[in-house]
């Protein structure tokens, strides 16, 4: 359409006139347009539905109402929630032990030497080191450590979700969220965060009030995500489970993981409360949530979708991030400045801080390397530990992984690196309380559009983490 500027301006004037007319008319119709419109629509809806809907009037046994009285009841709700979640963790921990050992046997013990021999035949030593000892091994470790717990945990969690249980969690916990000055739907975004914090942050869009939405965004990191569950599960089974008699070790390990998850919920409440008393002052606004009817999930389809949708995607992401991280670890362990490798310099620089908070330089460096993805924390710790042990004269090449053949060998490795129960506990705590991964940080920036809140969400958990493990460590050192 070719409009000259004359008619175009006239058009604009007409539009502005229309808009100002609308403004004026607004005052003739009263303040409750919205009420009237909806009342009108609902009346007609009721009209139509009266005409077309027939009810046979028979009473039926309503299993979902009975179930709801039990699962969401005033007294049974919270215990049932804990029992359900414990069951999920217990199945995951007990179920993933064996496949984990098998995978690491296959990918690391058998395949790695094969590949190494094959590639060193025609590649220069540094190239095969970078590719096989760096990139391949880290990725293999990610798969061996993460795949089994994920393949069990996600389908179970998805079954609960499809069944309609998540909104009930929100319903159960809303009383606490209200006292913390937060929105009840934060329980929903919190449970989404158990899958992935970035997804949890996006899900906060369901919260209308900007104040409560910010609180939900900032505290979402206290939900253990995909990348952190395996860390918790592995360390809990290795260290905490080992303290208990063998028959109970699975249950004790599951208990430890639940304790950390509950601690995360506790920090969610405390932080929400603190925020709504300080920089995000205000009272809890509304909470209106539909509790959808229970729908029996379609078991096989849920299994299939959660394997494809969640497990595969998350694993893929982990591998993608593990490869460059593996390369970086290999490089910093093999580039030497002075008489030590770069990695060793970093570890030495971080060791005093690590010692102060009951961790060590290796773990802190691993958390820095793993900023792109929490999934690679454990593989990075393993590689860097091997490296630092090598330098104490225990192995052959720097940055080449020690090759544990089962979970017990991980244990031996950690013992050689002077890990104690306290180190394990601190690692579990720090894994819960540290900065979000870079994807989540970016998502927070996109959702809030503000550097200020992005920084708060990044550094608040980190600061909390350091404070908590510092006090735990100092207390433990005095007490034991």
């Amino acid at each position, binding site marked *: 359409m070719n409009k000259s500027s004359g008619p175009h301006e006239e058009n604009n004037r007409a539009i502005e006139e229309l808009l100002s007319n609308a403004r004026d008319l607004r005052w003739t119709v009263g303040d409750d347009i919205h009420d009237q419109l909806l*009342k009108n629509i609902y009346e007609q809806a009721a009209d139509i539905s009266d005409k077309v809907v027939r009810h046979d009037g028979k009473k039926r046994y309503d299993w979902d109402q009975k179930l709801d009285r039990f699962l969401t009841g005033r007294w049974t709700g919270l215990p049932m929630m804990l029992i359900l979640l414990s069951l999920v963790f217990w199945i995951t921990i007990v179920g993933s032990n064996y496949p984990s050992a098998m995978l690491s046997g296959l990918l690391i013990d058998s395949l790695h030497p094969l590949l190494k021999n094959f590639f060193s035949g025609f590649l220069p030593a540094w190239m095969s080191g970078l590719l096989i000892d760096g990139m391949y091994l880290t990725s293999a470790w990610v798969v061996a450590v993460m795949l089994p717990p994920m393949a069990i945990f996600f389908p179970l969690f998805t079954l609960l979700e499809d069944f309609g249980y998540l909104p009930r969690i929100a319903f159960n916990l809303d009383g606490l969220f209200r006292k913390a000055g937060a929105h009840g739907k934060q329980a929903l975004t919190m449970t989404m965060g158990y899958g992935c914090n970035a997804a949890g942050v996006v899900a906060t869009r369901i919260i209308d009030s900007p104040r409560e939405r910010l609180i939900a965004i900032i505290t979402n990191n206290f939900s253990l995500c995909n990348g952190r569950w395996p860390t918790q599960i592995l360390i809990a089974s290795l260290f905490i489970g080992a303290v208990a008699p063998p028959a109970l070790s699975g249950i004790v390990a599951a208990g430890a993981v639940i304790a950390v998850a509950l601690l995360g919920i506790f920090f969610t409440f405390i932080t929400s409360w603190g925020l709504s008393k300080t920089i995000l002052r205000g009272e*809890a606004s509304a909470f209106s949530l539909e509790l959808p009817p229970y729908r029996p999930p379609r078991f096989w389809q849920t299994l299939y979708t959660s394997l494809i949708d969640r497990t595969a995607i998350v694993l893929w992401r982990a591998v993608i991030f593990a490869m460059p991280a593996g390369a970086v670890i290999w490089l910093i362990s093999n580039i030497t400045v002075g008489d030590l490798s770069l990695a060793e310099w970093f570890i030495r620089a971080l060791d005093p801080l690590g010692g102060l908070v009951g961790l060590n330089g290796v773990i802190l460096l691993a958390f820095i390397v793993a900023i792109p993805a929490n999934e690679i924390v454990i593989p990075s710790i393993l590689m860097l530990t091997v490296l630092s042990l090598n330098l104490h004269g225990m192995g052959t090449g720097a940055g080449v992984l020690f090759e544990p053949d089962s979970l017990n060998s991980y244990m031996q490795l950690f013992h050689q690196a002077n890990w104690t129960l306290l180190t394990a506990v601190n690692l579990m705590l720090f894994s819960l309380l540290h900065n979000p991964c870079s994807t989540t940080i970016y998502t927070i920036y996109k959702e809030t559009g503000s550097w200020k809140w992005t920084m708060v969400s990044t550094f608040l958990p980190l600061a909390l983490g350091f404070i908590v493990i510092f006090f735990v460590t100092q207390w433990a050192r005095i007490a034991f």
Partner: protein
Amino acid sequence: MNPILLLIDGTLILILLALIFWPEKGIWARIREARVRRQRILLEDTLKQLYDHEYYQKPVSIASLAGALNLSQEKTTRALQSLAQLKLAVFSGGQWHLTAEGRGYALRILRIHRLWERYLADETGVSEAEWHRRAEKREHDLTMDEADRLSETLGYPVYDPHGDPIPNRFGELPPKSGRPLTAAQPGTHTTIVHLEDEPAILFEQLSAEGLYPGMAVTVLENNDERVVIKGEGKKITLAPVVAANITIPVEEAKEAEEAEKEPFLTLADVREGEAAEVIGISPQCRGMQRRRLMDLGILPGSVITRELESMGGDPVAYNVRGALIALRRDQARLIRVKIKKEHHEPQL
């Protein structure tokens, strides 16, 4: 000292210095910028106070201005002189006055302030006591265009949540009308049109009693010791100092409003197994909250039964038009209902 460690430490110190002294973005630059801003805020606040004195026809003195601004008299005088230099205020007839330009400026700030209060009240969960304080800060940040857009988003409101009129974009404001509640005879049926938001302590007391602009009340007692009013089925006793901060219209309502005449229950009073029919949603519930409740099917005529209680008894899930809806008690209290006479068996 180890050279590599020194290198790392040095880098960190460099980054720290950059953070402080970076032009425009650094901490130092921000502090300097803030000083300029503080000056503007001071002048704008002074303008607002001058306007306030003019609107309520209070005599302007340096002492009264300094008191309202919480400043020393010396600083207040300096601020007034700056305003005079900018031709926003003049000293004549022994008193400070706003110039036409200054009045326009003050009204613009007032418009932003009240729009922002309305926004906080309607769309966010910020508590009532916070509205004023936050708007005090925000009024200096928004541009006129942003204010216009905000007004559009809110559906062109004419009153702020305290019942004060919001100046329109041309700075027009209705003349002050109404009288304090303390001027009403016992037996008067009336509607609250305004709650004064300053001082904050008195306002907190008013909002804690559940009073809000638009609420229909009847004056039961009015003497030097206390003012007793009845509204929404409850009796409220106020000290005369507090009651003086409530404004009611000059003319009296002929009859008590329906909502006030007939005592009603709220959804929070409904017991398990009882069915209640919705009469309406309290005007105290507004903005997004109100729209959400209606979206979920809570409208006059809807029949609601109480179904599930969560831990601690709050929130409660209600059956609303076939769906299970969880609501907090604070919200249920805003939904006015009457109990249906015929007893409904909970659906099995």
